[in-house]
């Protein structure tokens, strides 16, 4: 969904939910404090319960059972959207996901599907402390038969959410908290700002950015969601200050992991940096590094570099939180440290 006036992430998500509810009768949404006038902790569901009082349900603080309720509704032919107020608390529902939701379709020989969407705000940089600031996507990466989708401010956020609701698979829909307040920047004439952009793949597209119109590049940075603006700032700084040109690949579908576009980019640039807001060990970057070195060892002239949060807890104090989370400077340093980047 694209509109002429600049829209913030929360507005796009809210408008999309209204459109989905108008379009489909089988969609229901529930979660904590989602009713009007409050409209959810981040206001994504604002106005929805006033418009559709029977299809928007407020719940107790009981994530484990919410996942079970969603699974049941989905098995019975509805399209539940479950809002987890803070993504940190998906952990309470993971048994339902690992031992139920992700397995039902195969266990029952394709006789059922579990088309549910779990919307989960993730990410820090807001001073919310150790248990309300994490990016826990990596806990989901190894679960077979689910789909993990992460929106970024350069993606068509509305189209991603609509596709997630239409999807027959269980979908985790990751919304970085900073996305709500940021303006969505979609490509115009194949560019966002000064960066050339290509978009490919359906229904969860991959965006590829180049500072040179894809004619040259010293490295590929692969990232997603809330780290995309950080990475774009870093590659812009490298262009403006040092004339180091990189490509950026922004995935929206993290699982199942499809890396064709990443491999194409690495074939052009010869080096890879991964960037994620979650902690380093066993994360998104680790999985990508493993896959890329298997598939494209001969294209790489340098070891893959990973940028991520330090392996620790996220402090509430903002300066300490900033120190913990990956920054523009961390990305710049990781790229600059690659062999052959500084000519």
């Amino acid at each position, binding site marked *: 969904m694209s509109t002429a006036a600049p829209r913030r992430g929360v507005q796009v998500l809210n408008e999309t939910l209204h459109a989905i509810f108008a379009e489909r009768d089988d969609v229901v949404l529930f979660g904590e404090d989602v009713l009007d006038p409050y409209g959810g902790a981040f206001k994504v569901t604002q106005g929805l319960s006033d418009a559709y009082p029977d299809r928007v349900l407020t719940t107790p603080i009981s994530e484990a059972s919410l996942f079970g309720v969603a699974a049941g509704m989905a098995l019975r032919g509805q399209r539940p959207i479950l809002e987890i107020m803070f993504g940190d608390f998906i952990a309470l529902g993971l048994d339902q996901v690992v031992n139920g939701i992700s397995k039902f379709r195969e266990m029952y020989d394709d006789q059922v599907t579990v088309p549910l969407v779990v919307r989960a705000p993730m990410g820090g940089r807001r001073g919310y402390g150790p248990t309300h600031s994490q990016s826990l996507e990596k806990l989901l990466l190894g679960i077979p038969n689910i789909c993990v989708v992460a929106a970024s401010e350069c993606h068509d956020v509305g189209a991603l959410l609509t596709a997630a609701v239409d999807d027959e698979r269980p979908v985790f829909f990751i919304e970085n908290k900073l996305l*709500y307040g940021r303006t969505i920047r979609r490509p115009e004439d194949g560019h966002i700002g000064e960066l050339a952009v290509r978009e490919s793949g359906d229904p969860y597209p991959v965006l590829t950015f180049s500072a040179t119109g894809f004619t040259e590049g010293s490295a590929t940075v692969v990232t997603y969601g809330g780290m995309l603006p950080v990475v774009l700032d870093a590659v812009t*700084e490298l*262009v*403006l200050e040092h004339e180091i040109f990189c490509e950026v690949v922004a995935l929206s579908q993290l699982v199942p992991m499809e890396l064709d576009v990443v491999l194409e980019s690495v074939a052009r640039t010869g080096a890879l940096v991964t960037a994620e807001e979650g902690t380093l060990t066993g994360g998104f970057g680790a999985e990508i590094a493993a896959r890329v070195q298997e598939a494209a060892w001969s294209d790489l002239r340098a070891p893959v570099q990973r940028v991520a949060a330090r392996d620790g807890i996220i402090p509430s104090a903002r300066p300490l939180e900033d120190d913990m989370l990956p920054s523009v400077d961390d990305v710049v340093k990781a790229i600059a440290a690659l062999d052959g980047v500084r000519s």
Partner: protein
Amino acid sequence: MLEIVLTREDANTEYALLAEWLVEDRAAVAAGQPVCVVETTKATVEVESPGAGTIVQLYGEDVEVELGKTIAYVAESADELAAIDAKAEEKPAPKAAAGDRKATRKAAELAELHGIDLSTVEKRGFITERDVEELIVAQKAAAVPAAGPALAGVSTSGVSLPEAFELDETVGAVDPAFLESLDHDAFRALTSDEKVGALRGAGAQIGEGVDLGEGSLVVAPRVVIEDGVRLGPRATVVCEEVVAIGELSQFGADLELRCRRAYLGAGIWGGRSVRIGGGGHRDPWATLTIGDLAFVGDEAFVNVCRPVLIGREVFLTMRSLIVTHNVGHSVLEGFENRFAPVVLEDRSQVGLGAVLYAGARVGAEGIVASNSYVVGEIPAGSFAIGVPAKVTGSSSHKLSEARRVDLARRFVDDLHELLALRGHEVSAIEDDGFEIEGTRVAFVESYRGGVDPPAVVLALDVRGDVAEGVAVLDLLGRRVHGSGGVVLDSVREFCRKRGIKLEPGPWSYPGGLI
């Protein structure tokens, strides 16, 4: 001054809707009066004025405002209101954030060096050093055939070239046989009159009252020297094609002027040990032009392997340095080799010991502070200082009419004091004037006659005819009306020392009371 700030009501939201103003912008408000309605995530609230005064609203209605922002001021007095308005006017355009910058640092620096305006570049995407290099090549390709080597495509915008630049190429042509057989040492040994006679005999055009000082040498295939020019002693002027010098221009001892073409205007004042030439001074592009009434200070050095254009009334002060090329290692190893012109537009000033690097251009009336290092362009009317020179302000400030009159009126006091200290007999000051040697010297804002001769009048404006026996210095029109003797000359010299150069010119102070 009080501020109305949108406070954070809810940890999860960053914005609130400023729904409605309850008072007009700039209305009087009372303390505690509700002034606007704000919709936060939890409620609609009225925001009250923190005090009594005039409200200045910073946002419209129905807009999302980031929490923590000031949405209005309440001015408690007229002064505060004026201060708020002044602050709003002063506020510079928001500095381009990193996201708005298009040109890389390397590209911007190269463009600055070549005076290229990057805002004219039409390109989707970043502007890189390579883009600028391509632009420079294209500009050179476009410029060279049109301009020929004399100015090598350099823009003369803002530069008043000396009349000599337009002279027909046959004027002052010297017999090649004379040049071939000329014994330089023997020529130097001649008296000034003998040198002038020899050059004239060979075809050079040399005016009256020209003094080619002791030990001086002037050699060129074309020589045009107008009345009253004085060079030397020990001047060396050797040009590959032409040397032309306008009337009353003078250079002190030990001038060295070597280039392909030298076009110097009238009334130029050059100090001692001025050196013009250096590496590449015989190159096809080695052209020097200096405009009328320019000043070239002692020991100034001007390298001319590419054109150097110095405008009218430019001050190039002591020991300042102009270079049109650098000395570098191999370009093929990535070292810079730069050959570029230097331009000082009219009435610009270069301070003591300042360096103008190849490609530098100082706009009209721009000032470069002492010991600065100029790379690239200094805009017209600006003041630049530092290494490298950065613009820090304007080169002049705006004078109110009253202040200008006040300054001019004070000239009479200052001149009176100077003359008295020099031991001259002067009358007491009366009606903005005094008498010296039987002549009245006076200031009037606007001269419309009514001053008895003999008199020398300083005026900011002259209307109608000037009476016989009266000389009027029109200080803003920069012109002398009427004639006078030693008193007029002395007053004119006094004005010159305040930067006021008057027509008709060029003029040199023959000596007098000060």
